């Protein structure tokens, strides 16, 4: 699509890149078919093609973006189903990412909205604060009926069950491989996941050790930066990104080296794989960031590479595999999780309209509760339709969004793989296998 972004504006390399990406769009409309917000809203402005047009106008006009443009860009889930389906190869993820940075830099949000976004970034990227926030939320939860909008959505998301205690595995340490060591990896322990469901990292570590992998939880690594990045807040995101890169490179360049950085939350994995792009213009960090991105894999990619050991039990359960957007669209990982579950003896069932986002999308369910709620309902109905005994996914965000509504246990893929190859039965599934 032709654009007339001024050469002055294009002096900013991010704007120049945006111009190139917009130029690749031929306005064919195929992306509308896979856009969850378009399926809900049916308005071109809430479709990828419409947002590309809005961003084109935003850059062409310069100055402060108008409130409507910001509203429609905010409504994008960043699920990237559009990028995965686009026949013209439009790199929408980069376009919307830089678009959001542009909004953050040039648009003044109303004070309440701005404060909410700041609080979310702060809370989500710091496990200890997040834990305290959830405790406060549990106190406030009974009063949520009095509220509406994002605050209500936040309280709705607070788990009703008591939180698991902080897991000892998430502290910096080394877990030796069982049997001979065939590989050494760094595990992103993460932030939100460690608080909400510590069993995931525990299962990951057992599974990897059993397969001859030594795991490092590197000192200095923490949140991947995605919550801030989703809001276009690179000032908050980049220090976290750099801290992770530095921590992992210390390991990689140490005496024992590092074969991979392993991520078991696909939302975080998508971010880490994009570190190279995020820091490409920073001469001090570009090469280091690219190196980390290149060695980053999702746990399912790593297990697929290693090969799963024969299962020691045969639970034979029917598993509805929910492909997280960050997994299937962001990282284009579709085959491996299904193949691993099948190799572990599970019957893998695909969920109809599997390309559709569940509405979790990082902080989306908190900032856009109406659309997120509609998408949740649709996803829950689709999962219930397949007649599975358990649902599995590779992303904590989706699990939190859906677990209370699907009517069956919802676990992380690694928990099933760990169970089948000798680990404990995941909580909630004990009765399923006699």
């Amino acid at each position, binding site marked *: 699509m032709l654009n007339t972004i001024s050469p002055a504006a294009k002096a900013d390399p991010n704007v120049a890149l945006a111009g190139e990406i917009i130029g690749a769009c031929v306005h064919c409309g195929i992306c509308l078919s*896979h856009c969850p917000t378009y399926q809900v809203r049916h308005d071109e402005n809430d479709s990828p093609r419409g947002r590309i047009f809005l961003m084109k106008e935003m850059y062409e006009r310069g100055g402060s973006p*108008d409130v409507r443009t910001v509203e429609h860009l905010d409504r994008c889930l960043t699920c990237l189903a559009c990028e995965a389906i686009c026949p013209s190869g439009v790199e929408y993820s980069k376009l919307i990412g830089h678009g959001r940075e542009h909004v953050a830099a040039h648009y003044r949000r109303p004070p309440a909205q701005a404060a909410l976004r700041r609080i979310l970034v702060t809370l989500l990227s710091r496990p200890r604060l997040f834990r305290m926030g959830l405790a406060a939320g549990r106190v406030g939860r009974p009063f949520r009926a009095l509220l509406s909008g994002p605050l209500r959505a936040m309280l709705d998301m607070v788990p009703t069950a008591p939180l698991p205690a902080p897991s000892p595995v998430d502290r910096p340490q080394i877990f030796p491989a069982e049997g001979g060591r065939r590989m050494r990896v760094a595990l992103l322990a993460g932030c939100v996941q460690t608080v909400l469901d510590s069993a995931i990292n525990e299962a990951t570590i057992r599974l990897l050790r059993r397969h001859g992998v030594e795991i490092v939880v590197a000192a200095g690594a923490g949140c991947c930066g995605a919550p801030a990045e989703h809001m276009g807040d690179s000032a908050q995101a980049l220090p976290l990104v750099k801290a992770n890169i530095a921590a992992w490179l210390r390991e990689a360049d140490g005496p024992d080296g590092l074969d991979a950085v392993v991520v078991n939350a696909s939302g975080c994995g998508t971010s880490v794989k994009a570190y190279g792009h995020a820091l490409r213009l920073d001469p001090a960090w570009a090469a280091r960031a690219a190196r980390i991105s290149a060695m980053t894999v999702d746990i399912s990619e790593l297990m697929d590479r290693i090969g799963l050991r024969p299962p020691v039990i045969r639970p034979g359960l029917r598993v509805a595999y929910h492909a997280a957007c960050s997994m299937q669209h962001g990282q284009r990982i579709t085959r491996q999780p299904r193949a691993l579950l099948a190799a572990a003896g599970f019957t893998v069932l695909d969920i109809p309209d599997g390309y559709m986002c569940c509405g979790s999308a990082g902080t989306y369910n908190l900032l856009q509760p109406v659309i997120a709620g509609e998408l949740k309902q649709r996803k829950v109905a689709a999962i219930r339709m397949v007649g599975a005994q358990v649902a599995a996914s590779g992303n904590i965000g989706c699990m939190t969004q859906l677990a209370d509504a699907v009517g069956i246990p919802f676990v992380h893929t690694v928990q099933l793989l760990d169970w089948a190859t000798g680990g404990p039965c995941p909580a909630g599934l004990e009765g399923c296998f006699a």
Partner: protein
Amino acid sequence: MRMPDPDRGIMARRGELAARLRRIVGAQWVLDDEAERRPYRCDGITAYQATPLLVVLPASTAEIQAVLALCREQGVKVVPRGSGTSLSGGALPLEDGVLLVTSRLCAIVAMDVENRVARVQCGVPNIRISEAARPFGLCYMPDPSSQMISTIGGNVAENSGGVHCLKYGMTSNHVVGLEAVLMSGEVIRLGGAFQGAADGELDLIGLLTGSEGLLAVVTEITVRLVPLPEAARVMSMGFASVEDACRCVGAIIGAGIIPAGLEFMDRKVLNAVASLLREEHDPRTAALLLCELDGTAAEIDALIDRVRGLADQAGAIDIRTSRTEEERERIWRSRKLAFSAIGKMCKDYYCTDGTIPRNRLPDILDRMAELSRTYGLDYANCFHAGDGNLHPIIMYDAARPGDLDKAEAFGADVLRACVDMGGVLSGEHGVGVEKRDLMTHQFAPADLRQQQVLKCAFDPGELLNPGKVFPTPCRCAEFGRMHVRGGEMRFPDIPRF
């Protein structure tokens, strides 16, 4: 492309019109903010753009009735739009017109398996019908390349074709009932909800199908469902020259074989879709024919043998046959995404749509090569060879001054050549604004006049999608034909039948 001058008086009343439309469809479904109107500036063809006066997104036939009645009363023009994938500018907005977007009417009203029909609202994407019919062993056959998103209402408006139309027919062969709203706000119902329902009446369904939104807004469609073929396999046949491929097309059709699809891709298109196809092709391949054969397994095997024989005679250098359904789907998917994939090879492209008698294929391809040299613009070819429906893809750079004009002139020359070779201006994309000014090349004044008389019968105020299809205004008022005005007939005292 020259459009009628916008009416400044109407444009000055935007605010007032928006308020009245909001009372019909609800506040959030009228877009009057300029930022939100601009993404609607174009449909599938970006060369033609205009910001609509207002965008309205109704949710029901009743709302569309009220919107049209209001617009007629106020003398406001209306442009209907589905998903905005037209390749002829059929949904190009007017600066003094309301853009009526039908995407919210997206319910599949009924699947009637016993009568083998589906009743659907106009905003349902084409592919959704086949998806809903598949569990019953049925499908909706017309499959334009945009089927993932183009709406069935838009398909009816443009009489869309697609890969499978060679054997199964166009949209017009698959519609048995229509509900449509006239510009007056009245609803008309044609045909019915079973196959054959329209057989006994004047074929107004045929008239509305392909009328490009000039006669009425189609709101609900009853389509014929067809049993899914028991099996289907696609042969991909590579040829070292375009002429050999063309000869093979003629041989297959001449032998009395009706493939389910017979498609042509040249080398450039093949390169563009290589990553989608996930197949290597012989570097000598200058053209690829895709030939789908469907039916029972025995029938398909026999046909494959015959087609292979014909292809060998025509000099095919590489013949493959799909082994799995997944492989077959992948081949068609790459064909259907070919136009968008071309986007990776050039800044901009302009894809046009003419149809010629099949035996003139080599002549028109020669002419295209000649025109490409004249205009200095590259092009690629990907088209429905079986029914002689061409889609030359002309590559240009909109940022280079004069390039768009050259591309348009190139396209127009190709279309004129089609007509001169005994063909027609459009196979399936419609006339819209893109081919509007070429209509006089195909039609004599009397032909065009009679088409305009029909337009006037449906929309005497010329408010529905004006400026499209006809190179001149219809001047309905000058006909002096009998019109109903305010419920009163002219000359009420004259005795009638």
